[in-house]
């Protein structure tokens, strides 16, 4: 008879995993709960109120920052999705020296600490004499989103054989025609999912924005940074909760969209970036 190890005992593992989820969710629950606190306290929950949400909405700087963050995320999403998808198609279909060096180039931003990315962006903008502004943030965000889109879309591409494209070409489609008529329709759930993930990542990004932001248009995370550093403010809880709702809605859509098209595991694959 086999002895049973701890790793075969779902009971022990179940409790351990439960504690991991607790560890992950308690801090978030604290933020959400205290965003509805009627007191200016982070220790005592007194009664429920929406006063911190009113403070958030009535503060023109914070409100502008919210809209700035959304605009940055939308532009980043569109440009990075187009470039990243094209890059994924090119990398999978081309078997050349260009594509293998481009493959390495594409992977490096994913594993570079964000602070290095932020400094690099800051240096190139100052070298070119470009004043820091809304657009420098957008450029920096796009740079670090392309690779992410490429990974997600490439995962889906790997499962589409060449045969359908070849069939289209046998039927008279040009190479470009087979991309437009065969590849793009087959890929679009993955492309939309990747775009939504980029929206969430850009919307939440702090470090890149911190290094590339100008004086006027500061995205929400940069504002949160100065709020936290200049003392504790319960408004941060409300801002954090609103941001959470925005980005988790985007991620939920990213997971749901591939599922709506009948690929059950694709949602997880989108999040784990796994291929095959």
């Amino acid at each position, binding site marked *: 008879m086999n002895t049973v190890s701890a790793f075969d005992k779902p009971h022990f593992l179940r409790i351990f995993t439960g504690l991991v989820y607790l560890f992950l969710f308690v801090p978030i629950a604290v933020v959400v709960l205290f965003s509805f606190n009627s007191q200016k306290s982070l220790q005592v929950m007194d009664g429920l109120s929406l006063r911190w949400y009113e403070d958030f909405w009535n503060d023109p700087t914070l409100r502008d920052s919210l809209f700035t963050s959304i605009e940055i995320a939308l532009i980043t999403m569109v440009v990075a999705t187009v470039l990243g998808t094209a890059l994924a198609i090119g990398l999978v279909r081309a078997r050349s020296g260009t594509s293998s060096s481009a493959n390495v180039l594409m992977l490096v931003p994913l594993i570079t600490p964000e602070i290095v990315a932020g400094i690099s962006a800051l240096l190139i903008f100052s070298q070119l004499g470009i004043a820091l502004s809304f657009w420098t943030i957008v450029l920096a965000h796009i740079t670090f989103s392309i690779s992410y889109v490429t990974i997600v879309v490439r995962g889906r591409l790997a499962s589409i054989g060449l045969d359908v494209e070849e069939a289209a070409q046998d039927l008279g489609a040009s190479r470009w025609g087979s991309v437009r008529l065969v590849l793009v329709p087959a890929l679009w759930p993955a492309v939309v999912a990747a775009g939504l993930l980029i929206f969430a990542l850009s919307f939440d990004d702090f470090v890149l924005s911190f290094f590339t932001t100008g004086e006027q248009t500061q995205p929400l*995370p940069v504002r949160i940074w100065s709020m936290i550093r200049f003392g504790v403010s319960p408004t941060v809880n409300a801002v954090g909760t609103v941001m*959470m709702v925005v980005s988790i809605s985007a991620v939920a859509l990213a997971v749901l969209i591939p599922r709506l098209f009948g690929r059950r595991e694709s949602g997880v694959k989108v999040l784990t970036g796994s291929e095959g």
Partner: protein
Amino acid sequence: MNASRFWNWFVYPGALWIALLFAVPLFLVLALSFGHVDDLGRGVYGFQLTNYADVFNATYVPVLLRSVGYALITVILCLGIGYPAAYFIARFGGKYRYALVAALVIPFFVNYLVRTYAWVALLADEGLINNAIVDLGLTQAPIQMINTPFAVIGGLVYGYIIFMILPLYVSIERMDPSIVEAGKDLYGSPFQTFIHVTLPATQPGILAGSVLVFLPTVGDFVSAQLLGGPDTYMVGNLIQDQFFAASDWPFGSALTVVMMLFLAVWMVLYLRRATRGEAEVL
């Protein structure tokens, strides 16, 4: 146009964008690290090693070592916490597997500053945890938790554990459970089976997760800034200071280059595996 040239046109726009706005700027950081600050406080390119001499002095070396030390402890904790959880979800999650993975990812999409700030509220001297244990009579006075290495490392584990759990999950799920049965038949002991069968089979996930946690952790400055103090500052805090408060960009660049040298081995290892399709890529 031959096929290869046709497909290369799909590669060029994205690859050029990354080259111009990422690869070239990295070389600017390297170049500026040999420069100096002029009389107006601006960084000027040059050919001198003074910034590197400054990095390797008694003030900054401990900070560099501390950063690497914190990052290694963070990797070990993430592995210790993440492996059992990923194992449970992949092997015993059943039909709830996808929901459980989705639930893991949710906290990661809450802004990192807000998440770290939540830990400030929990761990502060007047925070929720201290209030609770004092009220329960477990201690007389609050326990110092914030401004300690524990708080900083805890913040790092919380911030980056998802990068460990996801690759682990993928490689454990991919593992054929029957090899564990076979291992038991051959070795008997469950511990030996785990060491000789399960661990090697999930090694790509362990490696990918460790690298993906280690790299961003070394460069982090948010956790040490919010949950720590001057005694727990990491190299990210030093670098950040040089580009803002101290405004010594050449010295900040030298610190960045030295930090990247600490990371280079891990980055190359990961890239080699990822380009051969061996590592889980996130």
